[in-house]
């Protein structure tokens, strides 16, 4: 069955941990965007969520870095951060679906790493908190190394999306795909608070137009100029590769200074856009 739903959203920890620091009108707009994504997801009644995500040294560390890692655990515990203001959960997994997707990738030119234990930090817990507040839908996390160079190139992420998309569209389950990370930000560094609205708008435009050529042409340097955290957009680029001709019908953007990031949202209504 073709993918039943897809969306993309930023995952700044401020969304839950210092929510009230944002201006009320920005908080309202971001909350409404998450609600739009949540409603779409609920209406699509997914059996499983494939979560294209990134993290902040929760699993990948410099003792062992992979490019992309598929979780294949029975459950994923999170959040790692006790200050996130998201209750600790065991998010259910689906190791059988993880394995099927892995086998499909290995048969089609991609060899991601895989892990039977993975912890979720705010990179996964924040979007799931807003999109599936009961954390009940089993998740297959696909984790991108966005921190330690060298990393997957945008072009390679598109290709991975293309390969994965074929398996997801042919799966018997009702599958939703959620990409998370970005947009421009440079968290924890001297430039913390930097937001590049021009970069974010151009990137969102490429996503909304399904401009795979533009997305695949981004260089590391172009992305890093929008802050180290902008590299998390590799997950969005992979989503574009999965969705191919299907385009999002909703997008939203808000540069939220107190959360130190550009907050972007996209929702693909599969029924409406084919």
């Amino acid at each position: 069955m073709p993918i039943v739903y897809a969306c993309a959203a930023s995952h700044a920890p401020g969304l839950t941990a210092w929510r009230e620091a944002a201006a009320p009108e920005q908080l309202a707009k971001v909350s409404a965007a998450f609600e739009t994504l949540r409603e779409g997801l609920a209406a699509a009644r997914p059996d499983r969520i494939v979560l294209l995500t990134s993290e902040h040294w929760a699993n990948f560390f410099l003792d062992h870095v992979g490019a992309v890692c598929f979780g294949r655990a029975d459950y994923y515990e999170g959040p790692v951060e006790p200050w996130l203001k998201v209750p600790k959960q065991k998010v259910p997994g689906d190791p059988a679906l993880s394995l099927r997707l892995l086998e499909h990738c290995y048969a089609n030119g991609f060899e991601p790493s895989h892990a039977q234990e993975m912890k979720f930090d705010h990179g996964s817990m924040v979007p799931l908190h807003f999109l599936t507040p009961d954390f009940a839908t089993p998740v297959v996390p696909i984790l991108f190394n966005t921190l330690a160079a060298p990393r997957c190139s945008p072009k390679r992420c598109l290709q991975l999306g293309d390969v994965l998309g074929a398996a997801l569209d042919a799966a018997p389950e009702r599958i939703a795909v959620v990409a998370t990370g970005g947009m421009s930000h440079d968290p924890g560094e001297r430039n913390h608070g930097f937001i590049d609205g021009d970069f974010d708008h151009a990137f969102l435009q490429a996503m909304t137009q399904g401009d795979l050529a533009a997305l695949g042409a981004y260089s590391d340097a172009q992305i890093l100029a929008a802050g180290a955290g902008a590299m998390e957009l590799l997950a969005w680029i992979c989503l574009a590769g999965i969705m191919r001709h299907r385009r999002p019908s909703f997008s939203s953007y808000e540069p939220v200074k107190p959360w130190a990031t550009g907050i972007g949202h996209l929702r693909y209504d599969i029924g409406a856009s084919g």
Partner: protein
Amino acid sequence: MSAYTLNKMLREINRDPGARQRYSQDAEAFAAGFELAEEERHAFLTRDIGALYRLGAHGLILRPFTLLQQMPEPEYLRLIRE
């Protein structure tokens, strides 16, 4: 990211409740389990955030470490920008 062992130690405090407890009970004993340079050990034990940053602690490890101690963002940024 340089300062591999320094980051490894701080990361354990961030992500492992057991490490967090050992650190809060006896920071010196906790640090003794890691092969740190002397200036790294000193910066860690004196909680000199600016020095830890300059020694190579990664922002996505150091900021969460300071969040565990409820350090306000302006203070964190002031210390790392010194």
